């Protein structure tokens, strides 16, 4: 049931500097990027922002590609990533539906609280596989860190500015989806080879994207896709939700690892 939306102090900065200043240390600030996650929370009274920061006009959107490196502004829409290097492009093309992809942002995808009914953060596995760095600001100033470190620390008190990665030599992914009017991705394994090194990660197996280090080690030790698949669940505690059981996820994950690696070649 929708509740009346309260009057909130809303700031809509028109430049990056103004956005950073308005966010300050992030206390008591609710970020509204694309709005696809936070608006329902406000509508249903689960989030009651005291101050809201609307980022639409802050100039944080856009994809740059230079010197073999791709840099993506935090407010870049998921739709604008559909042609990004693989496996990011494939993951982006299967988020929600065209209308939501046009509104949802990569920054929001990184900061998504874990979904209760279905997984969120479908781009996280791709970004981990690509070895992406996240540049953010907040208390203590700006910092750049690997996406896994950002996800582990959580988005509280951080304003994501941009995400960047070295363009991979190859990228691939494999997913299991639930047929629906718009097919939800239950779980997606992403693989990328950058500088000769293969990274593997999964989205949809737990509350956020997880790097599959044991499977990577099996590969680095000379194992093939099947050998890596055997170690697929070592880093993961599969979760239950409305889309699939933990048992099903545990059984499917090795298959996805094998398929993604075979596709990577």
């Amino acid at each position: 049931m929708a509740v009346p939306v309260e009057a909130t102090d809303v700031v809509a900065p028109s430049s990056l500097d103004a956005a950073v200043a308005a966010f300050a240390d992030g206390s008591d600030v609710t970020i509204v990027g694309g709005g696809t996650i936070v608006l329902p929370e406000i509508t249903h009274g689960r989030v009651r922002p005291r101050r809201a920061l609307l980022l639409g006009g802050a100039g944080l959107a856009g994809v740059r590609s230079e010197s073999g490196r791709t840099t993506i502004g935090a407010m870049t829409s998921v739709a604008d990533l559909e042609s990004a290097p693989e496996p990011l492009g494939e993951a982006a093309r299967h988020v929600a539906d065209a209308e939501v992809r046009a509104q949802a942002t990569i920054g929001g995808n990184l900061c998504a609280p874990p979904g209760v009914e279905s997984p969120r953060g479908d781009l996280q596995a791709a970004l981990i596989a690509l070895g992406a760095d996240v540049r953010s600001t907040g208390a203590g100033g700006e910092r750049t860190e690997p996406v896994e470190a950002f996800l582990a620390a959580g988005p509280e008190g951080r304003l994501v500015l941009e995400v960047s990665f070295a363009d991979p030599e190859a990228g691939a992914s494999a997913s299991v989806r639930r047929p629906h009017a718009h097919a939800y991705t239950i779980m997606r394994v992403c693989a990328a080879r950058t500088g000769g090194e293969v990274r593997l990660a999964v989205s949809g197996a737990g509350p956020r994207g997880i790097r599959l280090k044991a499977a990577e080690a099996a590969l680095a030790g000379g194992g093939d896709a099947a050998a890596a698949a055997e170690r697929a669940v070592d880093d993961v505690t599969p979760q239950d939700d409305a889309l699939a059981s933990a048992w099903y996820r545990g059984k499917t994950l090795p298959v996805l690892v094998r398929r993604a690696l075979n596709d990577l070649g």
Partner: protein
Amino acid sequence: MRLTVNGTEHDVLSPPLTPLLQVLREELSITSPKAGCQQGGCGACTVLVDGEPRRSCLTPIASIEGASVATVEGLGTPEELSPVQAAFHEHYAAQCGFCTSGFMMAAEALVQRDGETSREEVIEALSGHICRCTGYVKIIDAVTAAVNGDVDTARVEVDQSPRGDEAVTLIPGSPA
């Protein structure tokens, strides 16, 4: 803040984080966008914002200051249906009707795009819209016809005769 809806400018008084859906339905009494799931999953609230299909339940009005919004109320009239409306009529694409406004506005965005649109592109464009009567085939037929100009608005005659005074027999022989 200012908002133009179907060509008419409005001063909106709702708080800035109010979803566009609530502003349209409750402040401006424009009720074709439906409040379905109110979390972006069903597509019943889709309207056009500056020509792009957008979930009004996910859009805070403060983020679209000065924008131009289009809803089904701005498409056609009972005397002169828009091509999308005529195609829905011709192909029997509405059952209960709850999802119809959202489908129509997504279709309208496709119609306004240039060039041929394949059936697969129509399906992809409509994939965020759920019809719980599951009348998808007829909806896709209608939208494919509309986007490719395969609809004759002049052929459509809408029966507008009042029903209130007539005894309507749903099943022959049953009480009215």
